[in-house]
């Protein structure tokens, strides 16, 4: 019952947390660039304004696809915090991501089309690592459920250091941070205009932003699992991870897609696969 209520709490609180985190992100990034930056609540103001704007669409299919993107993203997080099988949940996350890509394909500008292709390449790049991470969890805890992992009290980070670093690597892709912001970017210097979202406007863009808040909280929930043996330490580690991603974002130049794909696969193979093989060797097969 408590698990269910945490899941429901996710539905209502995740956008608040996600929005605040994004506000923090914008302030911290600004300070790194010697700017003052927007107010903390700026992301909420943005979305409120977007919702009032006219929505112009290119294809009848694009907005419904975005609604599906949002709904399945919420479902992903809800089921995760409700304690369902994470392996199934990851497939749901993929489904949500596919809908975002489909919306971009439907909107048919050359920029959103190229963004969609690149987003698919990114998905191909990060998926092996995500799967290996879950397998690592299972190997240590023997379960795919959030609460079983938390209640086991095992310091996963000590068993899975390679997998954690590998996951940080692809987390940069999921957070759409430089050097991997090749499909959408919030920086002004994007050669693809705004990539995937080039042809979204008004409500459409608001939907994309809200879905992102949900996604960020879900992803940080995955990070938390590595440190779940200690609640405060875990939360601290999650925040540090977030700040680390902001730092990376501001210090790296964008990769080409070839480099993104190749490096992510190599990292997954060496750090993820290596960690897994060692785990199998030491913990018995």
């Amino acid at each position, binding site marked *: 019952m408590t698990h269910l209520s945490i899941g429901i709490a996710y539905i209502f609180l995740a956008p608040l947390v996600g929005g605040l985190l994004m506000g923090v992100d914008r302030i911290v990034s600004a300070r790194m660039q010697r700017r003052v930056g927007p107010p903390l609540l700026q992301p909420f103001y943005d979305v409120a304004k977007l919702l009032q704007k006219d*929505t*112009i*669409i*290119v*294809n*009848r*299919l694009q*907005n*419904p*696809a975005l609604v*599906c993107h949002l*709904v*399945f993203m919420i*479902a992903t997080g809800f089921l995760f915090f409700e304690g*369902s*099988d994470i*392996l*199934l949940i990851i*497939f*749901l996350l*993929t*489904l949500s991501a*596919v809908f975002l*890509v*489909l919306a*971009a*394909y*439907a909107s*048919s*500008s*050359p*920029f*959103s*089309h190229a963004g969609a*292709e690149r987003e*698919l*390449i990114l*998905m*191909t790049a*990060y*998926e*092996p*690592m995500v*799967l*290996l991470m879950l*397998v690592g969890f*299972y*190997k240590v805890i023997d379960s795919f459920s959030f609460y079983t992992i938390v209640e086991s009290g095992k310091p996963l980070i000590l068993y899975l250091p390679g997998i954690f670093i590998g996951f940080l690597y692809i987390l940069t892709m999921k957070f759409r941070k430089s050097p991997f912001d090749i499909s959408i970017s919030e920086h002004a210097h994007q050669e693809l*205009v705004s990539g995937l979202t*080039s*042809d979204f*406007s008004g409500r459409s863009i608001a939907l994309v932003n809200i879905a992102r808040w949900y996604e960020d909280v879900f992803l940080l929930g995955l990070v938390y699992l590595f440190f779940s043996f200690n609640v405060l330490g875990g939360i601290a580690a999650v925040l540090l991870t977030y700040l680390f991603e902001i730092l990376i974002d501001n210090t790296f130049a964008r990769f080409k897609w*070839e480099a993104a*794909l190749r490096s992510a*696969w190599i990292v997954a193979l060496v750090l993820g*696969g290596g960690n*897994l*093989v060692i785990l*199998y060797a030491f913990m018995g*097969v």
Partner: protein
Amino acid sequence: METLIFLVAFPLLPAALLLLVPNNGVRNIVTRGSFAVIAAASVYLLWQGIGAQPAFYSLEAGLIDEGMFVIEVFLSALIFFLGVKYRNYLTSVFVTLQFALMAVYEFVYAPGVAIEHNLFVDKLSIIMALIIGIIGGLICVYALGYMKDFHSHHHDMKDNRPFFFFVLFVFLSAMFGLVFSNSLLWLFFFWEVTTICSFLLIGYTKTPEATRNAFRALVMNLSGGLAFAGAIFYLASQGLTLELDKLITSPHGLVMIPVALMCFAGITKSAQMPFSSWLLGAMVAPTPTSALLHSSTMVKAGVYLAIRLAPVISGTYVGDMVALVGGVTFLLAAFMAISQSNAKRVLAYSTISNLGLIIVCAGIGTAPAIWAGIFLIIFHAIAKSLLFLCVGTIEHRIGSRDIEAMGNMFAKMPGMAVMLLIGICGMFIAPFGMLISKWAAIKAFLDVGTLMSPILILILAYGSAVTVFFWAKWMGKIISANTLFAPRDPMNDQISWDEWFSEWAHTVLTVAICLAFPLVSQWLVEPYIAGVYGKDFDLTKSMYMITFIMVVMVILVPAISFPSQRNSYAFGTAYMSGRNTYPGRVFDGSIATRKQATLKNYYLQSFFGEDKFMKLGVVMCSCIILIMFGVAFI
């Protein structure tokens, strides 16, 4: 037992009728009627078999055996003759060797061999029979409309439809025989008949390319058949059993050589590397042939045999090698699918890849792995058949099977687009079947208990990431719009009723099986596994609810959100760097010209090029197969 014999024998009746009465009206009626009868009979078999124990039957085999031997002599002579005529001598050599083995068996060992049960039916046979009867039957119905169109498009080819339909129904009969045979001799007989049927179907158009590819398929499958004959010869010469049920409960050491030979036969038939090229070559044939070979027959015979043998090879080095062949094929075929823009080739590579995964499950052979493998067979048969039929129809309408030509499908042929999308979703999106099976496969691989476990998980991790890429970009092409309000294609209304019926039936099945899979698991798959492994097992009970909710969501959310799109939104044109634009990506060029921007998908040739991966796969899998025989003989 009557139902079994009926299912094997009945398709021969329409086959003969269709061959002898070359009248289009008669063909339509006979084919539709036979589909109804065959499908009903396979459902009746299900009704009889639910809750029943596996049943074994002994037939008075003397006359049947002799009849089969005569047919084998005739077919061998035919292939030998064809091999010489088309200067494909390897075919003749293989068939001679195979015939020699079987003739020696027939005259030396046969009198001493007593086969107790020739026929049997268990839950796995029932599943296969349903796939063959319903999916195979639907493909025959589809072929009515498709072949009519095909010959109106290709006037240069001789219209030999009576023969085509004759082979289709013989094929179904042989497949039924294959899944009901307990005697290895009968199994081998039907095995060879399916090889020859596929040879005839691939070569149907008689173009030089078709003939060449038909012979390639024949040679590769005959090499598997030769291995199968070798297995029978070995078993008989060692005085071992020639019955499937006894073979899989034999002590490991004794039967490893014949089992490895039969696994080899399964690998050739299910187009694993290095034998994948025959299935790719089979694409030259008309679409019903491809659909049949890829979904309900032929390749499914290969994986069926592998799944049957799984209990014997599970946990042995032979099993590990079989799993590795499947794993390498799964991964590399998925890579190669990315680089293809020809829709049929994408489907072919994806079939090879999925069969690879089934072979992995068979090679691992633990109870959860077999669960995953059987569900992969079921889901793949339905979704892949649907995709082939859609691509066939679209090809006749738009004159191309290139994915790049399938833009704007929603405006031109909305029904077709929806079916194609559902088929694609069925292949890779949660919680449709293939993903459920993949999920089960991951869980199965986790608990293998050897170092195979991390290797297979790595293979699966990369393979499934790539799968998402090539399916999603195809979906993107379908829903992208070249022109906003394209007129509905008038050709859309010319699709024959037979094609529509068959495709919609497939679509409904694709969705229905996702909702019904807990029942399939409870009634058929779990009892089969409990019977073979002697223990109950509930991999899935915990997740029925969550997958059910997911299926309902995946159907409902798009079904609600797409039609309920607000009409108040204004339509705009795509952004083109600030140029003046018009619907359909038309923009103002310089000096008052108007141009249209065209978009193409990524195929990443430099990363996932066909040549290098095909070579790599052939070399790797050949080595693994050699090692497999090595460890079998030790």
